[in-house]
């Protein structure tokens, strides 16, 4: 496993560099941020001063060499917008998103397992039809709309929850519910599908013939085999959540990395954008490794291959 891990780390370094170089170059192709940061009537002198002060007058390769030199010394530069350390801003925002995404995914997986198994017990039964309808709807509702409706119903009309913000446990409910719906919908269908096929396997019939209870059969026998595809999809969905929480973060005023990235793109705040992208890329890379390892633990067929690799 350690060898495997080391190999994965080495092979992931290249994509990381490509991502950073790409973001670096693309961001700078969108133009000089001077006019965003200077008054509209700034003179050419002021523009030149700004450009020179931020090193934007240097050739792209020189800027890039400077930047990577800094990264190696763990200096990610300063935010143009706030004057703060870019890495500190990214590191402050990241846990907020991570917590939101992790909590959401745990709940989505749990709910999907329960509902998916329930539906799979009797394919085309009432439970299956209800859950199929609900999960399809859940997977297709736009989160922006859902968030606004959620605020209107639960914060304004009923007054049960705060509209937004991060203070108190209540503030977690609407963002999580909004984020949860789509992964839940997708996962229910995956779990149902793989449970239906697992439950028709010979070993289930054997277990059933030996008198195993329905619940024990599902949890001890079928689910273990059906969980692997769900885990893979859940991992992908988690990656999507870390990236895609921006709508929820924007609406609910959640100080996360998605919002930070969008703001730094719109504000051409290059250093912050790069720090945020790098951090997210590293996190996604780590997540992928964990998913692979989890998969190996769940499915013995995968293990020898990965161990040899």
């Amino acid at each position, binding site marked *: 496993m350690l060898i495997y891990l080391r190999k994965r780390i080495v092979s992931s370094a290249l994509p990381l560099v490509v991502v950073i170089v790409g973001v670096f170059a693309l961001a700078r192709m969108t133009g000089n941020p001077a006019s965003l940061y200077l008054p509209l009537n700034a003179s050419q002198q002021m523009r030149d001063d700004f450009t020179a002060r931020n090193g934007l007058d240097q050739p792209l390769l020189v800027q890039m060499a400077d930047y990577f030199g800094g990264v190696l010394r763990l200096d990610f530069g300063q935010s143009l917008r706030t004057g703060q350390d870019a890495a500190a801003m990214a590191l402050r925002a990241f846990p907020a998103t991570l917590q939101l995404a992790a909590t959401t995914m745990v709940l989505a997986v749990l709910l999907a397992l329960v509902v998916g198994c329930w539906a799979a017990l009797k394919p085309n039964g009432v439970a299956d039809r209800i859950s199929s309808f609900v999960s399809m709807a859940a997977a297709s509702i736009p989160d922006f709309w859902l968030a606004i409706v959620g*605020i209107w119903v639960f914060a304004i009309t009923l007054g049960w929850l705060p509209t937004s*913000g991060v203070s*108190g446990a209540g503030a977690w409910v609407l963002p999580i519910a909004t984020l949860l719906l789509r992964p839940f919908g997708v996962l229910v269908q995956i779990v149902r599908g793989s449970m239906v096929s697992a439950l028709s396997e010979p070993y289930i019939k054997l277990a059933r013939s030996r008198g195993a209870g329905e619940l024990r059969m599902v949890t001890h026998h079928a689910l*273990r085999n059906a969980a692997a595809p769900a885990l893979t999809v859940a991992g992908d969905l988690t990656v999507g959540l870390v990236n895609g929480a921006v709508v929820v973060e924007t609406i609910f005023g959640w100080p996360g990395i998605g919002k930070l990235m969008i703001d730094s793109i719109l504000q051409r705040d290059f250093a912050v954008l790069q720090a945020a992208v790098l951090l997210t890329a590293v996190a996604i890379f780590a997540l992928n490794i964990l998913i692979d390892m989890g998969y190996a633990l769940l499915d013995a067929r995968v293990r020898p291959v990965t161990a040899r690799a």
Partner: protein
Amino acid sequence: MTSSSTPLFPASAVKWPALAAGALLALSGCAVSNSEAAPASGSALRVVLGQEPPTLEACESNLTSTGVVVRSNVTEPLVERNPQTGELEPLLATEWKATSDTEWTFKLREGVKFQDGTPFNAEAAAFTIDRAVNSKLGCNVEGYVFGDADLKVKAVDDTTLTVTTPEPDPILPLRLSFLEVVPTSTSTTAKVREPIGTGPYKIEKWDAGQKITLSSWDGYWGDKPAYAKAEYQWRSESSVRAAMITSGEADVAMGLSPDDNIGDLGVDYPNNETVALRLEATKAPLNDIRVRQAVNYAIDKEGIVSSLYQGKHKVAAQLVPEGIVGHNSALKGWAFDLDKAKALVAEAKADGVDTSAQISLVVRSAQFPKITELAQVLQEQLSQAGLNVKLKMLETSQHLTYQVRPFAADEGAVALMTQHGNQAGDAAFTVDQYMLSTGAQSYFGTPEFDAMIKKADAASGDDRKKGFEDIFAYQNDKVVQFAHISHQTGIIGKSKSVNYTPNSSSGDELRVSEMTPAS
């Protein structure tokens, strides 16, 4: 997250993931939120803004998002403009006069202290001006208010300050009303995110990403404000800001849209913003004044104001609204006359102008409420006049390349949707930028027009007022770089528990000391 997915594999039980979820929730609760909700009224005033201030640096407080928290709350200027009367009023300076063509002398208030305990004096005032205007810090206020001109400052004695300008400047005190005074201990080499000032509130805590708390400062020279604290949060969606007022989570919400429908919790105020199309007269077909006039006739301003903005905006005939020195109240908006517009276009075409050439209608997404709808209406109305209009919705940074010099080249002539806010109260801040032939936001001008502007800039009193009034009339008559649409009305959300009447400067400078709890 990892602990959440790995415990799944002992498929025997659901308890591990459940525990993990619980633990995560608890953990995250601790890490992200350590603030408890404030009481509904009384001790703390809760304000919700559209965005987190990028900084609270005093020399950037002309930026709306910074100034709305800092100005007159944390820091104070020497003089301040009364938004209702337009008059300058004493603040840290008690009196001022021009002592020569280029020199102004200010008498400063005695007994004022900074929040760090050091005394406010002429040295601090001189330091503030030097730091903001003459330094290499690149303060936003420098370019906005002072341009490249350096000022000579001198602390004659503790309470006397002289400021010398390179050219005669009749509105120097007005310009100085944008400079928030900071103590001499403030860094001159770096901007300061949390300034020290002389204002009624000091910065207690800034939870980055979440909340800024100001608390009333006991050493304030003036009256103690009614609210002991002011708490600022931010939400980018105006509907969420409105919801926070409705649900009682906030007392004041900035920048609401008519669509937010919060009834009598929304308070209208003139925000001094004017919307207009700026026409690029160097390219066909806009290079012909008849086509630019046709643009003006083709726009149904009354219709736009009543259908898109519920009648709350006012039809505009110039770039500055009432209340700004130089506003010409005799000017009326161009009549909506489609036949005349068509006739003018036809006339231009007969004279060889290529009226089929494309005009790019360049618009910034989400710049103000209903801008997309407005852009579509304009595109349709100009097309009806016989013009070939292509709509381009751009994000801020791209839009700026069209908005300020050097202008981005486009495949055709540009009609740029511009929203101009004159927060200074004097038309000079408008015409220098928008109408001088070399102005940062002006496509063109004429030598005669430039001369009128320079003359008005240097004049004072009634001559100044008259000069600018003539300039606005001349633009509509002879230049026609602009097709004015409307003077906007801002909406602030305000809970019943707060007494406050917003004014034209509330969006840039929200004075907490002017608010009181309703009993």
